[in-house]
């Protein structure tokens, strides 16, 4: 029970932290912010890896192995693709160059 309450505690605190972090973001950064946080939601890859390991070794279930494998694949696409595409976008945002040359 103690661990459950601690997890819920972490859940609530992280939620409020998210509100504080995001509330003042200029509108021009909305897309990179969205795709950057989208990449973070691929953190589910951590859960996918641990669930797959159990499915492969302990429970030895074919359906579980397939689901787990696919979960890792999709989460990795989300993570790698998300970070790369965000970086590409942010690389395009430039300040005004010297106009008086």
């Amino acid at each position, binding site marked *: 029970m103690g661990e459950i309450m601690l997890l819920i505690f972490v859940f609530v605190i992280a939620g409020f932290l998210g509100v504080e972090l995001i509330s003042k973001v200029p509108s021009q950064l909305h897309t990179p*912010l969205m795709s950057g946080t989208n990449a973070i*939601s691929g*953190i589910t*890859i951590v859960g996918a890896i641990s669930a797959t390991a159990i499915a492969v070794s302990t429970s030895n279930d074919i359906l579980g192995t397939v689901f787990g494998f696919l979960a890792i694949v999709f*989460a990795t696409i989300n993570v790698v693709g998300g970070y790369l595409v965000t970086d590409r976008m942010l690389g395009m945002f*430039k300040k005004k160059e010297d106009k008086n040359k």
Partner: protein
Amino acid sequence: MNTNELINVFITVLYMVSAVLFIRGIKLLGKADTARKGNLMSSVGMLIAVVTVLAEKEVRDSFTLANVAHNGYLYIIVAVALGAVIGAIWAKKVEMTGMPQLVALFNGFGGLSSLLVALTQYINDKQTTPFVGITLGLTIAIGAIAFTGSVVAWGKLSGKLFKKSVTIPAKNFINAVLAIAGLAGVCLYAFSGANEKLGFVGIVLVTATYLILGLTMVVTIGGGDMPVIISLLNAFSGLAAAFAGLAISNSVLVVSGCLVGTSGLILTLIMCKAMNRTLYSLLFGSFGAASSKKGAASDKEPRSMSVEDAYLILEAASSVVFIPGYGMAVAQAQHSVKELADKLEENGAEVNFAIHPVAGRMPGHMNVLLAEANVPYEQLKTADEMNPQMPNVDVAIVIGANDVVNPSAIDDETSPIYGMPIINAYEARTVFVLKRGKGTGFSGIENPLFTNDNTIMLYGDAKQTVSSLVSEFEDA
């Protein structure tokens, strides 16, 4: 302290480092100068988290040389390599105009992954406690909605699926039934105790109903409302990861998932505010039903002009504002627009871009396109920054935008968009509207701006019109 305990301490510390990097990364992502560094920082956090999980006990236990087919690391490495290659190729190949659908698709994959994690976890251990049951059930529900919802959004944005607007009769009733049936499934599973059959029924019920719910919820939503729904789905995929973390008691999943969930929710509310609509009316109301009253129609004919005459007006202008909309993305006109902006600046005019928060199909869509065309971000102004200066603007050039410059939002109470904050293009001395043809545009709302006395329509493909204006400047 034995070795196992020591490793566990290390694992906890590394997860902590990775969570801190995510928090710091999101913070830096919110400022233009540091955004790229922030994204890098959060990706390092992700790398640390992924390496750390490889040292977890259940993953270490899956290591075996005796029987390679049962070696967990083999599966993990192959799956990660496969996903990394696919993700990298897509991220490299995508055109900036295709960005909204790619973000939607990646988001769908995140949701699908959380859904599959929950199902794998269920298969691994069919008996459950109520807490794990409820969180696992909710992971399935939210992950499933995020998955099918994002796929539908991807289909709509890329024009591959659901091209025509779809209406579902008694939509709210159907959605409510699906949602409640799914939640009943969650309870059934959570309180099934040792009865595995009952638990199985519950899991199947929640998976099926919420996969369908994602479809029925998003399929009726029109293109103009896409920025809101994309950020909402983004919030869902984060929440799904957070609930998965609660179910398998992994704190790094809880922290990062929850951060994404709330940040997505805030972005959603910002978008809603920019359209003067509540999230409730967007999801449960029907924009289509309001189309019976399209606002007061005017009998006046809009005035149009040739490119040559338009050039003469532009040439004399000392202050010009571009107001882009989704039409600019469709015509891929952003590079030509930048050329025209350069010509105007050479000609001594002050050039700005006024960008409405919901212009385009995702939050900040226009900013990304214009940044791709090398427009410096100091020139990109929000509606609040630009509107007070609008009466001093000589020419406002509206490119493929419609509702976001519709003055009915201010003065016509019968208009469906009444109350929505707009860019006051009508206050400029002259307004050019670049438009494919006559008509009200996709939302079907009458726009009195087009028939104003100071408005001049330039019909035709936006990219072509802008290019011919550029060549007029070159010939001069």
